[in-house]
């Protein structure tokens, strides 16, 4: 699991460091998946029962990381959607999806 997270983070870093807008956005999405997996490992994997009373005795699995991941997924979903719309509008208005050409300040 840790190795998988490591691979995802490195892929995400590579993508974010590129100049193309869409690659960067995919990079942030991959990064958020890596982080979600990391939160999952923080609760400890493969230990214990379903955390419901009456479904067997303890030890129970820690349910909190899953709640955290759920929240994080919703948030990252929303930001990614917003980013894609924003990127599309920026591409339409500025006529470029290359960050080198979006440096700014030169036309002011």
């Amino acid at each position, binding site marked *: 699991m840790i190795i998988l997270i490591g691979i995802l983070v490195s892929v995400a870093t590579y993508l974010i460091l590129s100049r193309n*807008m869409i690659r960067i956005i995919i990079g942030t999405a991959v990064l958020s998946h890596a982080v979600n997996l990391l939160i999952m490992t923080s609760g400890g994997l493969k230990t214990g029962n379903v955390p419901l009373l009456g479904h067997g005795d303890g030890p129970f699995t820690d349910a909190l990381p899953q709640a955290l991941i759920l929240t994080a997924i919703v948030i990252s979903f929303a930001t990614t959607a917003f980013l894609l719309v924003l990127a599309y509008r920026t591409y339409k208005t500025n006529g470029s999806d290359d960050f080198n050409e979006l440096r700014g300040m030169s036309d002011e």
Partner: protein
Amino acid sequence: MNNIIVLPLIIPIFTAVILVFLRNYIVVQRMITITTMIAVSIISFFLLELVQREGIIKLDFSGWKPPFGILFVADTFSVLMVLTSSIVTVFCLLYAFSTIGERHENMFIYSFVLLLVGGVNGSFLTGDIFNLFVCFEVMLMASYVLVALGGEKVQLRESLKYVLINVIGSSIFLIALAYLYSTVKTLNMAHIAERVAEAGQDPMLTTVALVLFIVFSLKAGLVLFFWLPGSYVVPPTAVQALFAALLTKVGVYALIRTFTLMFPHQPEVTHTIIGIFAGATIILGCMGALASRNVLTIAAYNIVIAVGFILIGLAVGTESAIAGSVYYLIHDMVAKALLFLLVGMMVYLTGEKLIDHMSGLIRNYPLFGWIYFLTMLALVGIPPLSGFVGKVLIGKGSIEAGSYVLLFLGFASSLVVLFSLLKIFLSSFFGETIITNEDKKPLPIASMASFIALALCMIAIGLGAEQLLVYVQDATNILVNPSIYIDAILSES
């Protein structure tokens, strides 16, 4: 009774949703928005009195006792922040009504402003670190929209960078939370503080603390402020003023909270790094402010300088230094909002952004000019005005702790602030007037009212320092002795 704590979060968010349905009724939208914010200000004032009387109050959602449930905590520091941000928002809205234009008002701008305020208040009041992340996201989401709203070329370009930086920042925040949870197995701030104190702050926890530090510095604009001048300059003035007053200050609040409550045990590592960062921020911010000829950029770099100055107080860490930070934070929220509104009004009146192209404004608008002068004096820290007490307290604290380098940097930065703002004053307000009486645009009355009101706030903070210091001292007391906070949260369970 405790339910009152949640109102500063709930009311703006509910109202924001209601406003979505009132899209075409702009006057109704304005009335509802301003009434809501005034109501929130009154509630937070009431809350401040309550906290002052009864000590820290908390609200456990759905009756889950801490450390298991999510909770809201109101201590003097957080309520002071909520109160200031609500009042500043009222005046920024007043300014927005007269200047922002129908195009923005049709596109739900008031809803997003209210969501922003809801997120900011939530971040101040929460007692759970994951909830802090969620409130940060609410606030950031609203701010993304506010930066991009309007759809101009520059706005879209800068907003894309702003959003990307913050998305990556949020991921790092989550990484820090995951490590924190796997080491201390709790997310309640008071409980984290207790466990960290019990286990001793080992290198692992210090690393986690530093990851959190990086995240909050990104939000506060501490060293990692490269995104700030770009994205704060592009939105409409009222939104700029809100950002200047609220967004970076939430980051500063989170830094102060984290390093006084949760990770205060390794000051030789963490607080030294904070000190270095604060010093570097001041130097770089000063360079930016001196080099720029654009009024908006100068104002944006002044935010950066102030953030560095406030964090000197945290880095030094003595009682009076932290009191100074709290006091200066309150002052800075008011003064920076006013500065941005004034500078935005200059751009609106002349249609120019460079100081070389403006001249003689004080002849056309005398009162406006003198309010600018007053703001400048307050930001520099001239005695009867609001910046003075904060600067004195931070200075006193750094002398007590013997950190003379930071002391020197802090007070040298005052001179740079004076110089950069005086540069605007001399070249834009004095000199030959360029606006003839025929082209003179009338100054909107509502925005003039908001200038005067904010200026009065500033004078009140300065003159009423004695009254305010009671609250500030109380806030500092809790910050310096985290055990008060921890006991208040965990004792009943």
